[in-house]
Protein backbone atom coordinates (compact mmCIF):
# COMPACT_ATOMS: atom_id res chain seq x y z
CA UNK A 1 0.00 0.00 0.00
CA UNK A 2 1.08 3.54 -0.69
CA UNK A 3 0.89 5.88 2.27
CA UNK A 4 1.32 9.60 2.80
CA UNK A 5 5.09 9.29 3.26
CA UNK A 6 5.42 7.55 -0.14
CA UNK A 7 3.31 10.28 -1.69
CA UNK A 8 5.47 12.97 -0.10
CA UNK A 9 8.62 11.33 -1.50
CA UNK A 10 7.17 10.92 -5.01
CA UNK A 11 5.81 14.47 -5.02
CA UNK A 12 9.30 15.88 -4.49
CA UNK A 13 11.10 13.31 -6.62
CA UNK A 14 8.88 13.74 -9.69
CA UNK A 15 9.63 17.44 -9.93
CA UNK A 16 13.41 16.85 -9.53
CA UNK A 17 14.28 13.21 -10.36
CA UNK A 18 18.02 13.88 -10.13
CA UNK A 19 17.79 15.12 -6.55
CA UNK A 20 20.45 13.41 -4.37
CA UNK A 21 19.08 11.24 -1.56
CA UNK A 22 20.46 13.59 1.12
CA UNK A 23 18.50 16.49 -0.35
CA UNK A 24 15.37 14.36 -0.75
CA UNK A 25 15.64 13.43 2.93
CA UNK A 26 15.89 17.11 3.84
CA UNK A 27 12.90 18.35 1.81
CA UNK A 28 10.70 15.46 2.92
CA UNK A 29 11.90 15.82 6.55
CA UNK A 30 12.71 12.10 6.71
CA UNK A 31 15.83 10.18 7.66
CA UNK A 32 18.05 9.39 4.67
CA UNK A 33 17.85 5.65 5.41
CA UNK A 34 14.04 5.88 5.36
CA UNK A 35 14.16 7.62 1.96
CA UNK A 36 16.43 4.91 0.53
CA UNK A 37 14.20 2.15 1.86
CA UNK A 38 11.00 3.80 0.61
CA UNK A 39 12.31 4.56 -2.88
CA UNK A 40 13.66 1.01 -3.18
CA UNK A 41 10.29 -0.38 -2.14
CA UNK A 42 8.42 1.85 -4.61
CA UNK A 43 10.70 0.58 -7.40
CA UNK A 44 10.38 -3.03 -6.31
CA UNK A 45 6.59 -2.86 -6.18
CA UNK A 46 6.45 -1.19 -9.59
CA UNK A 47 4.84 2.07 -8.44
CA UNK A 48 8.01 3.81 -9.61
CA UNK A 49 8.39 1.97 -12.91
CA UNK A 50 11.48 3.75 -14.20
CA UNK A 51 13.59 6.88 -14.11
CA UNK A 52 14.34 7.80 -17.70
CA UNK A 53 16.61 10.33 -19.36
CA UNK A 54 14.63 12.76 -21.48
CA UNK A 55 16.03 13.43 -24.93
CA UNK A 56 15.66 16.82 -26.58
CA UNK A 57 15.11 15.73 -30.17
CA UNK A 58 15.48 19.25 -31.53
CA UNK A 59 19.13 19.26 -30.51
CA UNK A 60 19.58 16.07 -32.54
CA UNK A 61 18.05 17.77 -35.57
CA UNK A 62 14.47 16.53 -35.36
CA UNK A 63 12.52 19.77 -35.73
CA UNK A 64 9.18 18.39 -36.94
CA UNK A 65 6.79 16.67 -34.55
CA UNK A 66 3.40 15.46 -35.73
CA UNK A 67 0.57 13.79 -33.85
CA UNK A 68 -1.29 11.37 -36.13
CA UNK A 69 -4.82 10.46 -35.09
CA UNK A 70 -5.66 7.15 -36.65
CA UNK A 71 -9.00 5.42 -37.19
CA UNK A 72 -8.86 1.66 -37.71
CA UNK A 73 -10.99 -0.87 -39.54
CA UNK A 74 -12.52 -2.51 -36.45
CA UNK A 75 -14.15 -5.29 -38.48
CA UNK A 76 -10.67 -6.84 -38.47
CA UNK A 77 -10.33 -8.67 -35.14
CA UNK A 78 -6.57 -8.24 -34.94
CA UNK A 79 -6.44 -4.67 -36.30
CA UNK A 80 -5.05 -3.11 -33.10
CA UNK A 81 -2.36 -5.76 -32.52
CA UNK A 82 -1.19 -5.77 -36.10
CA UNK A 83 -1.04 -2.02 -36.63
CA UNK A 84 0.79 -1.56 -33.30
CA UNK A 85 3.33 -4.26 -34.13
CA UNK A 86 3.99 -2.59 -37.49
CA UNK A 87 4.22 0.89 -35.95
CA UNK A 88 6.89 -0.36 -33.49
CA UNK A 89 9.11 -1.08 -36.50
CA UNK A 90 9.12 2.61 -37.53
CA UNK A 91 11.98 4.33 -35.62
CA UNK A 92 10.44 7.81 -36.08
CA UNK A 93 7.36 6.78 -34.08
CA UNK A 94 8.08 7.78 -30.47
CA UNK A 95 4.68 7.19 -28.86
CA UNK A 96 1.90 4.70 -29.52
CA UNK A 97 -1.36 5.24 -27.67
CA UNK A 98 -4.76 3.59 -27.93
CA UNK A 99 -8.02 5.34 -27.08
CA UNK A 100 -11.65 4.99 -26.32
CA UNK A 101 -13.40 7.69 -28.31
CA UNK A 102 -13.50 9.04 -31.83
CA UNK A 103 -9.80 8.24 -32.29
CA UNK A 104 -8.55 4.63 -32.05
CA UNK A 105 -4.82 5.14 -32.12
CA UNK A 106 -2.39 8.00 -31.87
CA UNK A 107 1.16 7.94 -33.20
CA UNK A 108 3.64 10.65 -32.30
CA UNK A 109 6.08 10.99 -35.19
CA UNK A 110 9.43 12.80 -35.35
CA UNK A 111 11.13 14.03 -38.52
CA UNK A 112 14.16 16.13 -39.40
CA UNK A 113 12.20 18.45 -41.67
CA UNK A 114 9.06 18.50 -43.82
CA UNK A 115 10.73 16.55 -46.65
CA UNK A 116 11.76 13.83 -44.23
CA UNK A 117 8.27 13.83 -42.69
CA UNK A 118 6.70 13.36 -46.10
CA UNK A 119 9.06 10.45 -46.74
CA UNK A 120 8.18 8.75 -43.43
CA UNK A 121 4.46 9.43 -43.93
CA UNK A 122 4.30 8.08 -47.48
CA UNK A 123 6.66 5.14 -47.25
CA UNK A 124 5.96 3.93 -43.72
CA UNK A 125 2.82 5.37 -42.11
CA UNK A 126 0.56 4.88 -45.14
CA UNK A 127 1.87 1.31 -45.42
CA UNK A 128 0.50 0.42 -41.95
CA UNK A 129 -2.31 -2.17 -42.03
CA UNK A 130 -6.04 -1.70 -41.24
CA UNK A 131 -6.05 2.12 -41.33
CA UNK A 132 -9.25 3.77 -42.53
CA UNK A 133 -8.47 7.41 -41.74
CA UNK A 134 -5.58 9.60 -40.53
CA UNK A 135 -5.72 13.16 -39.24
CA UNK A 136 -2.50 15.05 -38.63
CA UNK A 137 -1.88 17.65 -35.95
CA UNK A 138 1.41 19.46 -36.43
CA UNK A 139 2.99 20.45 -33.15
CA UNK A 140 3.79 24.16 -33.10
CA UNK A 141 4.87 24.64 -29.49
CA UNK A 142 4.88 22.89 -26.16
CA UNK A 143 3.27 25.22 -23.62
CA UNK A 144 3.45 22.81 -20.70
CA UNK A 145 4.96 19.36 -20.29
CA UNK A 146 4.96 18.75 -16.58
CA UNK A 147 5.66 14.99 -16.53
CA UNK A 148 4.14 15.27 -13.08
CA UNK A 149 0.79 14.43 -11.50
CA UNK A 150 -0.90 16.16 -8.54
CA UNK A 151 0.01 13.37 -6.07
Amino acid sequence: MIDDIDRRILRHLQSAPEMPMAELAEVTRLAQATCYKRVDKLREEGVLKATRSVINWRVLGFTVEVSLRVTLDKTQARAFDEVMAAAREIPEVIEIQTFLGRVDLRLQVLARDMAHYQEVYRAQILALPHITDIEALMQVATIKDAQTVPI
Partner: protein
Amino acid sequence: MEIDETDRAILLALQADATQSAAMLARRLELSQPAVWRRVKRLKDAGVIAGQALELDLARLGFGVTVFLGVKLATKGRVSLDDFERAVSAIPEVQAVHHVLGLYDYRLRVVARDIADFERVLRRRVMTLPGIGNVEANVLLSEERRPGPI
Protein backbone atom coordinates in the same frame (compact mmCIF):
# COMPACT_ATOMS: atom_id res chain seq x y z
CA MET B 1 24.63 17.99 -32.83
CA GLU B 2 26.29 14.96 -34.46
CA ILE B 3 26.40 11.77 -32.44
CA ASP B 4 28.04 8.41 -33.16
CA GLU B 5 27.09 4.79 -32.51
CA THR B 6 28.52 4.83 -28.96
CA ASP B 7 26.50 7.95 -28.10
CA ARG B 8 23.40 6.22 -29.46
CA ALA B 9 24.03 3.19 -27.27
CA ILE B 10 24.45 5.45 -24.23
CA LEU B 11 21.24 7.36 -25.02
CA LEU B 12 19.29 4.12 -25.48
CA ALA B 13 20.53 2.80 -22.15
CA LEU B 14 19.83 6.02 -20.23
CA GLN B 15 16.40 6.36 -21.80
CA ALA B 16 15.55 2.95 -20.36
CA ASP B 17 17.14 3.61 -16.97
CA ALA B 18 18.76 6.91 -16.06
CA THR B 19 19.85 5.70 -12.63
CA GLN B 20 22.67 3.54 -14.08
CA SER B 21 26.10 4.64 -12.92
CA ALA B 22 28.94 5.37 -15.34
CA ALA B 23 30.61 2.19 -14.09
CA MET B 24 27.57 0.07 -14.93
CA LEU B 25 27.20 1.68 -18.36
CA ALA B 26 30.91 1.22 -19.05
CA ARG B 27 30.67 -2.50 -18.29
CA ARG B 28 27.58 -2.98 -20.44
CA LEU B 29 28.97 -1.07 -23.41
CA GLU B 30 32.53 -2.35 -22.99
CA LEU B 31 33.99 1.13 -22.63
CA SER B 32 36.20 2.72 -19.99
CA GLN B 33 34.43 4.51 -17.17
CA PRO B 34 36.05 7.91 -17.91
CA ALA B 35 35.05 7.56 -21.59
CA VAL B 36 31.40 7.00 -20.62
CA TRP B 37 31.49 9.84 -18.14
CA ARG B 38 32.96 12.21 -20.78
CA ARG B 39 30.35 11.27 -23.35
CA VAL B 40 27.43 11.62 -20.92
CA LYS B 41 28.73 15.03 -19.86
CA ARG B 42 29.05 16.09 -23.51
CA LEU B 43 25.46 14.94 -24.26
CA LYS B 44 24.19 16.83 -21.19
CA ASP B 45 26.16 19.99 -21.96
CA ALA B 46 24.88 20.02 -25.54
CA GLY B 47 21.31 19.62 -24.25
CA VAL B 48 20.68 16.27 -25.96
CA ILE B 49 19.93 14.85 -22.52
CA ALA B 50 17.45 17.40 -21.24
CA GLY B 51 16.89 15.90 -17.81
CA GLN B 52 15.10 12.99 -16.21
CA ALA B 53 11.50 11.97 -15.74
CA LEU B 54 9.83 9.41 -13.51
CA GLU B 55 7.57 6.82 -15.02
CA LEU B 56 4.91 6.11 -12.39
CA ASP B 57 2.12 3.58 -12.22
CA LEU B 58 -0.59 6.22 -12.20
CA ALA B 59 -3.40 3.79 -11.42
CA ARG B 60 -1.63 2.71 -8.20
CA LEU B 61 -1.35 6.37 -7.19
CA GLY B 62 -5.06 6.83 -7.60
CA PHE B 63 -5.12 8.33 -11.08
CA GLY B 64 -7.21 5.81 -12.96
CA VAL B 65 -8.03 7.96 -15.97
CA THR B 66 -5.95 9.84 -18.53
CA VAL B 67 -7.83 11.81 -21.17
CA PHE B 68 -6.56 13.66 -24.22
CA LEU B 69 -8.54 16.73 -25.14
CA GLY B 70 -8.56 18.39 -28.53
CA VAL B 71 -9.48 22.02 -27.93
CA LYS B 72 -10.64 24.59 -30.44
CA LEU B 73 -10.68 28.21 -29.38
CA ALA B 74 -13.87 30.19 -29.98
CA THR B 75 -12.17 33.53 -30.30
CA LYS B 76 -8.67 34.14 -31.60
CA GLY B 77 -6.08 36.84 -31.41
CA ARG B 78 -2.81 37.14 -29.56
CA VAL B 79 -4.32 38.27 -26.30
CA SER B 80 -6.79 35.40 -26.12
CA LEU B 81 -4.05 32.83 -26.88
CA ASP B 82 -1.89 34.17 -24.04
CA ASP B 83 -4.85 34.21 -21.64
CA PHE B 84 -5.84 30.69 -22.58
CA GLU B 85 -2.31 29.31 -22.29
CA ARG B 86 -1.72 30.91 -18.91
CA ALA B 87 -5.02 29.67 -17.49
CA VAL B 88 -4.77 26.13 -18.87
CA SER B 89 -1.19 25.69 -17.65
CA ALA B 90 -2.27 26.55 -14.12
CA ILE B 91 -4.65 23.56 -13.87
CA PRO B 92 -2.77 20.87 -11.89
CA GLU B 93 -4.64 17.99 -13.56
CA VAL B 94 -3.44 19.20 -16.96
CA GLN B 95 -0.09 17.47 -17.47
CA ALA B 96 0.71 18.69 -20.94
CA VAL B 97 -0.41 21.46 -23.30
CA HIS B 98 0.66 21.47 -26.93
CA HIS B 99 -0.17 24.18 -29.44
CA VAL B 100 -1.01 22.38 -32.68
CA LEU B 101 -1.97 23.09 -36.27
CA GLY B 102 -4.84 21.17 -37.82
CA LEU B 103 -8.27 20.16 -36.61
CA TYR B 104 -7.64 21.65 -33.15
CA ASP B 105 -5.69 24.54 -31.68
CA TYR B 106 -4.46 22.77 -28.55
CA ARG B 107 -3.95 19.24 -27.35
CA LEU B 108 -4.19 18.67 -23.58
CA ARG B 109 -3.29 15.67 -21.49
CA VAL B 110 -5.43 15.46 -18.37
CA VAL B 111 -5.16 13.05 -15.43
CA ALA B 112 -8.07 12.33 -13.10
CA ARG B 113 -8.96 9.88 -10.33
CA ASP B 114 -11.90 8.42 -12.27
CA ILE B 115 -14.47 9.42 -14.88
CA ALA B 116 -16.52 11.37 -12.31
CA ASP B 117 -13.40 13.30 -11.28
CA PHE B 118 -12.60 13.91 -14.95
CA GLU B 119 -16.09 15.32 -15.48
CA ARG B 120 -15.51 17.69 -12.56
CA VAL B 121 -12.18 18.89 -14.07
CA LEU B 122 -13.78 19.24 -17.49
CA ARG B 123 -16.81 21.21 -16.27
CA ARG B 124 -15.27 23.39 -13.60
CA ARG B 125 -11.78 23.98 -14.97
CA VAL B 126 -11.58 23.30 -18.69
CA MET B 127 -14.98 24.50 -19.95
CA THR B 128 -14.55 27.74 -17.98
CA LEU B 129 -11.21 28.60 -19.66
CA PRO B 130 -11.12 31.96 -21.47
CA GLY B 131 -11.91 31.63 -25.18
CA ILE B 132 -12.67 27.91 -25.11
CA GLY B 133 -14.70 26.51 -28.01
CA ASN B 134 -15.18 22.94 -29.17
CA VAL B 135 -13.67 20.16 -27.05
CA GLU B 136 -13.17 16.55 -28.06
CA ALA B 137 -12.22 13.94 -25.47
CA ASN B 138 -10.51 10.59 -26.00
CA VAL B 139 -9.85 8.31 -23.03
CA LEU B 140 -6.38 6.74 -23.00
CA LEU B 141 -6.46 2.93 -22.91
CA SER B 142 -2.81 2.08 -23.37
CA GLU B 143 0.42 3.90 -23.97
CA GLU B 144 3.93 2.95 -24.91
CA ARG B 145 6.94 5.14 -25.42
CA ARG B 146 9.39 4.02 -28.06
CA PRO B 147 13.15 4.78 -28.01
CA GLY B 148 12.85 6.96 -31.13
CA PRO B 149 15.17 7.44 -34.12
CA ILE B 150 18.50 6.86 -32.39
